[in-house]
């Protein structure tokens, strides 16, 4: 891995030069309170809005693409059982690649920018979503499939009318984990030159006010995305809330 990265050493240096500490004078803006002052955050919150929006796009777009892709893979694996372990090994391997290495590898392919970040972030969602779709489908009790088949549903009807709906709670659980994890990993998207709240943090990492403001926004974003997924889940799975009368 290190050998593979060696040719990129100049690029790494360039990335560092671009991003680390390019706002060093900011430290003096809030000398007291160890650099953490709520007043400064309130006054300067505007400068985080554009990075926040970038971060939203860096999270939501990979989640949507990742959901479609991982679900497709899981459905293929459901239909052709032998593909299951192959896909799982592949998406698990993707998840283990460090993001910096990922960006550097892609520099020669997709260049720097938003697209590269989306490719990498999408790759990271795969294992979380794929595994849950597959588990959800596998955990549908066999008698449900049996009785559906016995009543004359075709394979496709069984999938769309029985198996997928019954797997929804597990699928949504995977999507929620993927949502918060993507918001976190998108903090490194600036390596690909795609901006986001991570860029703000690394632009002035010694100024606590800055770090805290950007981090809290990331946490809020992750929470909101999770809540949105949860709301969609509740809308799609009314039976989960049906209480015994």
């Amino acid at each position, binding site marked *: 891995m290190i050998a593979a990265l060696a040719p990129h050493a100049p690029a790494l240096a360039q990335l560092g030069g671009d991003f680390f500490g390019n706002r060093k004078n900011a430290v003096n803006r809030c000398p007291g309170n160890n650099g953490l002052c709520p007043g400064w955050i309130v006054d300067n919150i505007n400068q985080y809005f554009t990075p926040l929006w970038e971060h939203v796009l860096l999270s939501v777009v990979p989640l949507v693409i990742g959901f479609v892709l991982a679900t497709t893979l899981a459905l293929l694996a459901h239909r052709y059982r032998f593909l299951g372990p192959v896909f799982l090994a592949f998406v698990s391997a993707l998840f283990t690649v460090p993001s910096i290495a990922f960006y550097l590898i892609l520099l020669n392919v997709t260049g720097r920018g938003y697209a590269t970040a989306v490719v990498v972030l999408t790759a990271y969602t795969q294992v979380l979503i794929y595994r849950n779709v597959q588990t959800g489908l596998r955990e549908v*009790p066999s*008698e*449900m499939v*049996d*009785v*559906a*088949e*016995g*009543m*004359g*549903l*075709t394979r496709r*009807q069984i999938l769309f009318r*029985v198996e997928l*709906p*019954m797997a*929804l709670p597990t699928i949504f659980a995977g999507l929620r984990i993927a949502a918060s994890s993507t918001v976190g990993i998108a903090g490194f998207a600036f390596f690909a030159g795609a901006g986001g709240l991570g860029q703000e943090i690394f632009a002035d990492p010694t100024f606590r006010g800055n770090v805290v403001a950007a981090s809290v926004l990331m946490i809020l974003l992750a929470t909101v995305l999770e809540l949105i997924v949860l709301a969609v889940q509740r809308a799609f*799975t*009314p*039976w989960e809330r*049906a*209480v*015994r*009368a």
Partner: protein
Amino acid sequence: MSTTNAAHTEGSSASAVAASLEFVAASKRYPGQDKPAVEALSLEVPAGEICVFVGPSGCGKTTAMRMVNRMIDMSDGDILVGGKSVRDRPPAQLRREIGYVIQQIGLFPHRTIWENIATVPSLLGWEKKRMRERSDELLELVGLPADFSDRYPAQLSGGQRQRVGVARALAADPPLMLMDEPFGAIDPINRERLQNEFLRLQADIRKTIVFVTHDIDEAIKMGDKIAILKEGGKLAQYASPAELLMYPAEPFVEDFVGSDRALKRLALQRVRDIDLWKAATVRAGESTAEVRAKLADADIAIPLLVDDQGRPKGWLSERGMQGERVREELRSPADPIVELDDILRDALSDLLGSDTRYGPVVDANGAVAGVLSMEVLSHALSVPAEHIPTPSELAAVEADAS
């Protein structure tokens, strides 16, 4: 061969048609196994009857049932539904015309009750309004309130879910139903009730039913005909419950039905079905000469004192007969009192629990209809099996009476 019979049309949703079912040397052989799972099974189920497949585990009863709707494809032979081979149509289409109930019930948890019931109708492209109407009709038929329609299965008890499972199987009015241990997961008390309810329902709808169970008592109770299968998928005997209990075809059947088969036969008949002793019923104040004349004609030498409505008061003592008129002097109370609708097994139990070994039988109004005794019961057991009605005949009689 007449293969499709118009059955009863009375009752709320009674459907029109039941189909006959015929196994023609149907076999199932799995590759790599030397013994077949089902071996050349041949039997005919007339339209509108319940045929129970029963046998020890591994006897191929479920396999045989699942070959009918091609959940398992037979290796050899044929199965005819309404005279047509099940192989003539695509499996999915065939299955929509065959009701299917399994032990785990398998209601879809993500669908409301009415949506569950409408599973097959929706596959057949019915309109929503018609499906909801059909669902309401079926809920009523299986004895569930209409406001269950919009609930989810998780909100129902086991017995209620089982009824919905039956309603769902009936939704598109199939001429044939397959039921795989449908009451197997229900506790004994509710099972008995659901069995009775189902027999009453069947008396109304008259479907052709294949019913799989491992429980011989359930088979005797539910079956018009019973197919006993033994290991290797061989048919050991195919007969009515009474025949099976009276004339087991081979030691395996004898073993399987159990050594208490005479007692089991008692469960097949009700007190009203057998010849009772005639009693000399007397009222207080009647002339003793008349009573003596009645006694000469009666099957039991003790007069039975009754009230004005003919309800039994007790067995009259000698002293009560000493004058010119009958006086109310009892030698023993009228105990036990048996009802015409009691099954013989329960009646026997009552007799065994009393000192007298005989007791008055009363009709629905409580009036004496005869006397049941141990002798009467043992005579009933010697009656040829052909005269013993099948469960659906019994249920039909009951439905007519109510």
